[in-house]
């Protein structure tokens, strides 16, 4: 009797585990479909971005063909600005009195993007599950819930078009499930031909200031271990975050800084360290917020530390508190 109960329980546990693995695989497949759809489909549409009661409207045109990926995003509200993308090269046009063009390789995208070779399965730090089916911009979408397992990162909710996996709406949520911001298509044409003229900028910025951003040549942790180990490291990190790259750069005043990038597969933050100078002012600690992006500034061991990421304020503060300088080469990672 006891034995059969044991077998039954074991079967139940195994079934449960298998079911979970299956569910995780399904979530993974949908995330892959989403990323593929966002990159490889043609579409044009209007998006609204909502945060703190502010609404911004954006128009997007996206084309993927044998010539590569081209994209144009136009802000309809506020000061005129356009983002033009050709592969990884991004050109940002700012109109108005302060017209300006900024160009460079910017890895981030308006719609979420995940690299094919993911650093770690984000599943470790999040619970992922499917919600129901909802209608967004006239299309039926499956709702994918990504809830963080702790308070050190935000959650996501994605509305993915049933047939293609295209992202129709995304929401950023805090640990309690409160909405922080929404990005949602209000209208979208999927799989339509996009003419070359649609990808041409509307803004004329003939006499604009032109700025070229030099690429960030970051080492992967493996390469960094051989070439240049990071001279700073946090004693503890929130679960799931791992060092993704190490690089060096110079700020606008010509001072060198070290740049460490950490990621849990979905969320990421950067740590910048530079030597403190008297001109930097008092050693005050502060946190700035740019919507859900938090920036911690403070001083650690005579160095100015800045931690930046789309993570809760507690995360940037925690990481900064944990930073310390590596003593010697024998110091273990």
């Amino acid at each position, binding site marked *: 009797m006891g034995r059969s109960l044991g077998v039954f329980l074991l079967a139940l546990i195994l079934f449960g585990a298998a079911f979970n693995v299956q569910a995780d695989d399904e979530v993974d497949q949908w995330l892959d479909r989403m990323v593929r759809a966002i990159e490889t489909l043609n579409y044009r549409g209007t998006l609204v*971005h909502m945060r*703190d*009661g*502010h609404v911004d409207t*954006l128009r997007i045109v996206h084309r993927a063909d044998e010539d590569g990926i081209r994209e144009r*995003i136009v802000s309809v509200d*506020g*000061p005129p600005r356009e983002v033009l993308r050709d592969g990884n090269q991004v050109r940002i046009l*700012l109109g108005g*009195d302060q017209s*300006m063009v*900024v160009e*460079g*390789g*910017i*890895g*981030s*995208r308006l719609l979420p*993007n995940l*690299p094919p070779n993911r*650093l770690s399965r*984000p599943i470790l730090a999040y619970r992922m599950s499917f919600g129901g089916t909802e209608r967004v911009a006239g299309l039926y979408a499956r709702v994918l819930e990504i809830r963080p397992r*702790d308070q050190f990162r935000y959650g*996501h909710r994605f509305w993915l078009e049933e047939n293609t996996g295209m992202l129709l709406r995304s929401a950023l949520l805090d640990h309690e499930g409160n909405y922080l911001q929404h990005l949602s298509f209000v209208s979208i044409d999927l799989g339509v031909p996009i003419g070359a003229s649609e990808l041409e900028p509307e803004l004329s910025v003939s006499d604009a*200031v*032109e*700025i*070229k951003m*030099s*690429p*960030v040549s970051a080492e992967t942790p493996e390469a960094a271990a051989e070439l240049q180990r990071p001279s700073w490291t946090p004693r*503890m990190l929130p679960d799931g975050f791992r060092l*993704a790259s190490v690089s060096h*750069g*110079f*700020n*606008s*005043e*010509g001072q060198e800084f070290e*740049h460490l*990038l950490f*990621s*849990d*597969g979905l969320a*990421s*933050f*950067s740590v910048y360290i530079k030597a403190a100078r008297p001109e930097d002012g008092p050693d005050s600690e*502060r946190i*700035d*917020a*740019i*919507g859900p992006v938090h*920036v911690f*500034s403070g001083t650690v061991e005579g160095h100015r530390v*800045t931690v*930046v990421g789309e993570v809760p304020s507690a*995360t940037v*503060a*925690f990481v900064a*508190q944990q930073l310390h300088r590596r003593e010697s080469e024998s110091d273990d990672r």
Partner: protein
Amino acid sequence: MTETNREHLSSLMDGELERGARAFVLRRLSNDDELSGRWRRYHMVRACLQRELRSGADLTARVAAALGEEPVMPQPSAAARWLKPVGGAAIAASVAVFALVGINSSLLERGQPEVLAEQPGFVSQPTPFDWSFAQPLVPVSFSETTAADRQRISGYVLRHNQAAGSVGFVSYVPIVVGTRTPPVVDDGDAGVGTLTAER
């Protein structure tokens, strides 16, 4: 624009509106261009009175303001290693960084972790992981952020965006939206940040 609206706006500036009216005016602000334009002008006037021009109408004014606030002139040659300006626009380039990211920053200051000391013995000892959450964050005014700070933060945000695209979700929403001057109220109690916290 009615007289009532103007009165509401100026009461909001002075932090004299009660909560319901405040929510109403803030809602109107986000929908009414004329009203939000006036709101910005009020703040501009106040900022000018306080000798702090926060949102220059044109780039030259921004450059002048930024240079005035910075004791050290950025060295064009060094700046060029991060941002390569085309055609000698080096000074404008350093300013450009924060025009681009458009920090609608709300500055948070950390309160004292009083609660920790008063915890009864049976509560498990807080670990460093709890520590971050034990200190409340209090929104304070953005006006305390200097041009140099904004420039540093924008540069770092931009670089984070440049580098992080390959490791997870990083949106350039901060770049595409959010150059609007936020309705930040200088008086601590009536601040929009406080309002958000109450919700």
